[in-house]
Every structure is written in C-alpha cells, then in structure tokens.
C-alpha cells in the first residue's frame, strides 16, 4: 500500500493489524432449509432500512445525506452554472458526476480516490431524469462522497 510521507522521516510502509483473511465467514448455504436468514437476519427480499435528509450542505444548491444500513453517502448538487471555457458550445445542458470515497470508507484504510466507474453509472442513471434542454450552455455538477461503504 502506498505510504504517507511523515514530516520527520521518509515514506514508511505501514500495515493494518486487521487481517481480513483470518475472519471466517459462515457459509451462506447451510443445509437445505429454504427459510434461512441472511447474516444480518434479513429475509431474501428484505431491504435494509433507509434514512434520507435533504439540505445537508449549506454551500450547495442542493444536497442530501442518505443511509442504507451501513452505507452512508453525502451528495451535493451545484448548478446550473457556467460550463468551463474549454468546453465546446452546446445548446443543451451538461451533467457532470463525480463519486469519491473517503479513506475511512473501507475497513482497511484506502487511498480515497474517486471511482470513475461509479461516476459513469451515476451519470447514466441521472441522464434520463434531467431535462437537459431547459438549461443550455450550462453544467449541473453532482458530487457524491461515500462516508462508509457497507455494500
């Protein structure tokens, strides 16, 4: 794992004391019983309870905080605002999505960089929901930050 340079010495390699391979997971298919429950005692078709709150970020045009069980995400929407000068003229609006993880989102500390695959999935999902013709020449930015990743 890439190390963080500290102020007094050169870059150190560190490791997390959590050993993910040691944890034995119970086998999911135990016996032929059809009524078994998932590890968190949910049925097959049950979803985790969700929690939503809008207006989480005051600096944004719109924002929301969502929780699905252990997965926690904050999203901000900015716009419509001017497209960057380098972009070509377009007579429909543009949508720009970006999803990034915090370093503490995963049990073992990660690098927290952004995930281009989730960003493009989010873009495809929202494209159908936004009427781009109503804001030509501008861009709507949607930024998501995953605070905790529980699936």
């Amino acid at each position: 794992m890439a190390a963080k340079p500290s102020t007094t010495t050169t870059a150190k390699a560190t490791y997390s004391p959590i050993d993910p391979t040691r944890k034995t997971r119970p086998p999911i298919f135990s016996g032929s019983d059809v009524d078994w429950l998932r590890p968190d005692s949910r049925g097959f078709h049950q979803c985790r309870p969700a929690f939503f709150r809008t207006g989480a970020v005051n600096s944004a045009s719109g924002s929301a905080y969502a929780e699905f069980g252990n997965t926690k995400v904050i999203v901000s929407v900015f716009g419509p605002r001017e497209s960057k000068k380098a972009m070509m003229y377009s007579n429909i609006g543009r949508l720009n999505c970006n999803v990034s993880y915090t370093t503490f989102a995963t049990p073992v500390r990660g690098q927290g960089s952004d995930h281009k695959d989730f960003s493009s999935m989010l873009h495809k999902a929202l494209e159908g929901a936004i009427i781009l013709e109503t804001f030509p020449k501008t861009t709507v930015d949607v930024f998501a930050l995953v605070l905790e990743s529980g699936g």
Partner: protein
Amino acid sequence: MGLPNASEDLSSEMEVDAFRRLFPLRYFERHLAESIRPDARSLSRARNTTISMGAVASADGSALAKIGSTTMLAAIKMEVMTPSLESPDEGCVSIDFHMPPICSPLVRPGRPAEAAPVVAKQLSDTISSSGMINLKELSLVGGKAAWMVYLDIYCLDADGALFDAALLSAVAAFSNLQIPTVSLDDGKIVMLPEEQKEENSEKEPVNKEKRKLTLGGIPFSLTCILHKNYILADPTSEEESIMETLVTVVLDSSNQLVSLYKPGGAVLAYTSAVQDCIALTRQRVKELHQILEEAISGMEID
C-alpha cells in the same frame, strides 16, 4: 433582514439581495457601523458550535464538528509501522485534510482547493507543537513496532473558519480514540478479536491496559478578520471572501499561546489589535473546552 431605507443611495432602489451581491463591502460596512453582522451576531460572537463523537463506526476514533454551517468530519485509523532508528520508541501521527467537491462551489474534481494544503500544514504544525500527543505512548514493541496514527479530516461544508473547525474535530477525534488491543503473532502484530479476551491463549496482548491516549495541552483556536478598525470573530465564507485579512490564534487549555498566524492581508495589525484577538480567543477557549467536555461525558454515559 432589511436595510433602513433612509438613504438616497442606489440601495433604496434595489432589493437587499441584489445590493448584497453587487456591493458586498458596502453592505457589510453598513452593518458594521451598527456593530452587528448580517446574521445578527455581534462582532465578537462565534457561531453555534457542536461536536458529536463516534460518527464513523469503522474508525478507531472519530468526531464531527460543526461551527455554524462549516462541518468537518475527522476519523482516525491506526496502523502498525516499524519505528525509525533515531526514535525507536516513538510512533507517528500523519494528518491529512481533504476538501472534497461537495463542500463548496469553488472546488472542482480536477482542481483541488487552495485552502486545503494550507490548512493541512497548519494543523499538523499546531498539533505537533502543542504537545497534545505524546509519541512515546504510541509505541508497541520498542524498536520493532509502533502505531502510525492516520488522521483524515474531511470538510463536508465550507462556510468560513475552516482551520478552527478542523482543529476542533481533530482534538475531539483524539479524545474519542480507543487504541485496539493487539498481540504479537510470530513477528507480526495482529488484532485480537473480542472473543479471545477471556481465553488465555498463547498470544500475549501487547497492550492490554492502555486503550486511550493521555492528551497534554489541548489546543483551541479562533480566527478573526481585521477590517479597518473592526475585529470580527469567526467569519463566514462570505465575510472571508470580501475582507481578506485573517488572524488565527491558537491557545491551549491553560491559556498559553501555541501559535499566531497572520498571513499578510491588506490590514496591518497594531499590537492592540493582536491583543484584542488574543483576548477574544481566550474567551472562546473557555466555551470550546466546555463543549468538548460535554461531548466526552455524553459519550461515556452511553
């Protein structure tokens, strides 16, 4: 929130919001002349501050600090490292400050905020010079293994006074930190799962007793803006963008000066202005100390 329409200026002909956008400096100065600010605070009052601990369940210590709308989430993760040869019984603290694009319209994914590395450096200098953390407590096996503390602070909403909120969340996260119990397992440190504590296995826990850090002098800070002969405590981002001279004073809990930071600006400060800032900070330290104590005792009851 209306301006008195007694003047013959342009202000009487346009709406308040338009005036605020077009002539921000005059808008603020009209308020300052009455010793009040647009959000009805007095010049020396800070915004409502709250701390909540244990915000991130997967981290070893975490805290969410809010000063007005400015929100900072700090999380600590501990990893194991081999200490350096010059200090074989000391651990290490690495502080990282991130401003993700959600926090402010000025930050874009490809272009990180200007304020982020500045605040990060200020934070690591302040925390190391305040002597809050004793690095010797982070040692596990002398010369072979020590804790590396990764402190990550994320700004979730940037509305002025970033350094104050970041320092407060860092201090709260350290107060909340619980060092995991680990043991030595053929040369490598592994985490002891909770069930093994009762069994007397051959793995000797390396640090069974010590689970919380003892904190030395805890630093608290206040940022003030100097404008002509006014001093405004705890600015919002709108105030910061118009009046650019900032002074940040960091005092520890015994009112000793840890750091004083005045990065240039149009207003040059006389000694009296600096002393006034320090006096304001002294008052603020008392408030912050109380808020931190309440948050800590709130956690312990649960």
